């Protein structure tokens, strides 16, 4: 909250440290003394908001701003109020089992600010007391263990930057181009620096029995969300994390503890993690049978399709950020791959007839969002802008037509196809698909 002082009075600590009231007049006089000579003898006029600046000073240049700890936990500028997670109200029966999308059109780097990280809950966001939260590790291990948050914080810590993407990201585009928005077509991906303990460290501490091949991981939310993960993946690169971009996890992201399974579909990155059980076989939970399986045109379904295949999207221009007349622009975008690093991104402005290789921006990290740009002189004629990523393994992001040829259009998940934006001569941008 701003201090409730009349605008003309400000509080400054005097030499003794106690607040002293200074009238507006004395402050203005102070300003005038400093600027008087520059202003050719006259005091600069108090800003007139109707006058374009420069040359006039804006009001915030002729007054004092709010002091430190005015906002003890900072927040974005008021003018950024539109940059928020958004949902599609008609998509789900209730917001408790639903999803919100990250505003990719307004993000400029590879790190998603914590308040803008996409959400996917199955029983709402629990608000957990960390003092009561515990992690149980049991099953095919030597020493069943119950850990408090204090215990977990004592283990050697690791920080790594990884994306998390819901496999239904882009699901609404399987059948046709439906939502005219970058936020709603691609906003179920976000990326953060995660800090916690390697899952391998915890499992080695408990001792793994020879017969163990799988882990069942479970949340403390109302859904008691649970998934099966092969032990190999657990020991490879999974993290049990308590921090996100340097601060404690946000409640929406699993506070106080979540699993991060780098490069794999969001749903297995169990939030509010409370239990890990090792076993010989997978569990075939509801979330890996009824959901998060991919229905093929022949009626069979693919299960255990955890990997997030390489994907990229142009984030400027996009439906939310049209072009402002012909001229030089920087096409911007994000690329990521569940297999490892992004090797290359190509951009086309003519619907895939010709492609140019974009510049990748450092850091290019494994299983993390990677930024790319390409300068583009737009002459005002219709354009079809698209990007195509190639991962380290040489896998090339497919077109939606190629994906449909293999998988039909009812598989809901894992649509990693090339996104095409149609740019019209007036600069407006539309989500389209090419035949």
């Amino acid at each position, binding site marked *: 909250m701003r201090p409730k002082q009349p605008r003309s009075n400000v509080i400054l600590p005097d030499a003794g440290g106690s607040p002293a009231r200074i009238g507006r007049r004395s402050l203005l006089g102070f300003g005038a003394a400093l600027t008087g000579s520059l202003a050719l003898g006259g005091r600069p006029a108090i800003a007139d908001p109707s006058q374009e600046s420069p040359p006039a000073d804006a009001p915030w240049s002729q007054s004092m701003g709010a002091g430190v700890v005015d906002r003890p936990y900072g927040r974005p500028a008021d003018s950024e109020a*539109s940059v928020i997670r*958004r*949902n599609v*109200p*008609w998509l*789900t*029966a*209730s917001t*408790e*089992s639903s999803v919100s999308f990250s*505003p990719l*059109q307004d993000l400029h780097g590879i790190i998603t600010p914590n308040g803008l990280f996409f959400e996917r809950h199955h029983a709402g966001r629990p608000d957990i007391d960390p003092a009561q939260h515990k992690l*149980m*590790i049991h099953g095919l291990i030597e020493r*069943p*263990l*119950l850990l*408090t948050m204090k215990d977990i914080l*004592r*283990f*050697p810590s690791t920080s790594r930057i990884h994306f998390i993407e819901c496999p239904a990201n882009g699901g609404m585009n399987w059948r046709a*181009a*439906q939502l005219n*928005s970058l*936020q*709603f077509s691609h906003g179920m991906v976000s990326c953060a620096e995660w800090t916690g303990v390697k899952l391998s460290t915890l499992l080695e*501490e408990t*001792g793994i029995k020879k017969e163990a091949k799988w882990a069942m991981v*479970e949340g403390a939310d*109302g*859904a008691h969300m649970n998934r099966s993960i092969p032990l190999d993946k657990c020991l490879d690169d999974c993290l049990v994390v308590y921090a996100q971009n340097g601060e404690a996890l946000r409640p929406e992201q699993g506070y106080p503890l979540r699993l991060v399974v780098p490069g794999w579909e969001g749903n297995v990155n169990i939030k509010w993690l409370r239990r890990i059980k090792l076993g010989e*076989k*997978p*569990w*075939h939970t509801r979330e890996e*049978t*009824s959901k998060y*399986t991919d*229905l093929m045109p022949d*009626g069979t*379904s*693919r*299960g*255990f*399709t955890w990997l997030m295949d390489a994907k990229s999207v142009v984030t400027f221009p996009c*439906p939310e950020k049209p072009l402002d007349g012909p001229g030089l622009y920087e096409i911007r975008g994000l690329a990521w791959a569940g297999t490892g690093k992004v090797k290359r991104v190509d951009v086309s402005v003519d619907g895939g*007839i*010709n*492609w140019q290789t974009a510049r990748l921006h450092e850091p290019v990290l494994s299983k993390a969002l990677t930024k790319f740009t390409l300068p583009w002189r737009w002459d005002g004629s219709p354009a*079809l802008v698209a990007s195509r990523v190639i991962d380290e393994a040489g896998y*090339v*992001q497919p*077109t939606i037509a*190629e994906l449909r040829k293999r*998988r039909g259009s009812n598989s809901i998940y*894992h649509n990693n196809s090339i996104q095409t934006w149609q740019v019209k001569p007036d600069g407006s941008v539309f*989500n389209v*698909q*090419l*035949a």
Partner: protein
Amino acid sequence: MFSSRKISLAACALLVAAGSLARAAEPGSFGYGKPATPAQIAGWDIDVRGEDGAGLPAGKGTVDRGAEVYAEQCAACHGTFGEGEGRFPKLVGGVGSLRDERPEPTVGSYWPFAPTLWDYINRAMPMPTPHTLSSDDVYALTAYILHLNDLVPPEFVADRNSLPKVKMRNRDSFIWTDPRPDTTAKPCMNACVNAADVRISSTAEGRNLTPRTTGPLDTMQPK
């Protein structure tokens, strides 16, 4: 005053400690936390394996009892006969629809394992008060929903022995190994398609499905 020798010795000691922290391959070498007791484990150990029902608890439930609990606790969202109210999920139907233009995956048409149904109702339902039903009532509800789907007869009694034996319709249609990558696009750079063949097959323009992306959150519901 510290001598430089003392400093380097202290640094060495730190390094050794850090090294042992990082290695820690022996179980229990950190020694943090407490052993989970059998009673504690029993309190949280709720998982059930779909394929063979491992983990199903004692108890049982009939279709009739299931109908009673269902009417009280489930019908408001899932419909009296599992038809689903509004956008809440259907629990019946869709049999034979999986190859259709608009498939309807449900317990009856899609789920491969019956024990998974017990597990999911037990852990996640009823949505407003999850994990509050007795094991017997979860068995009863499972029996009722399987019966609604014509998977078991009206006299069926669900328990840890009977559930794994229920043959689900879609049991054999899942492939549990990932066949991807299943596309083999090549990164062509120039003249990759004929200009004449570049055709827009669908556009989101004018569909009126997109909530607004500026200003306050949208509450739109398309007709």
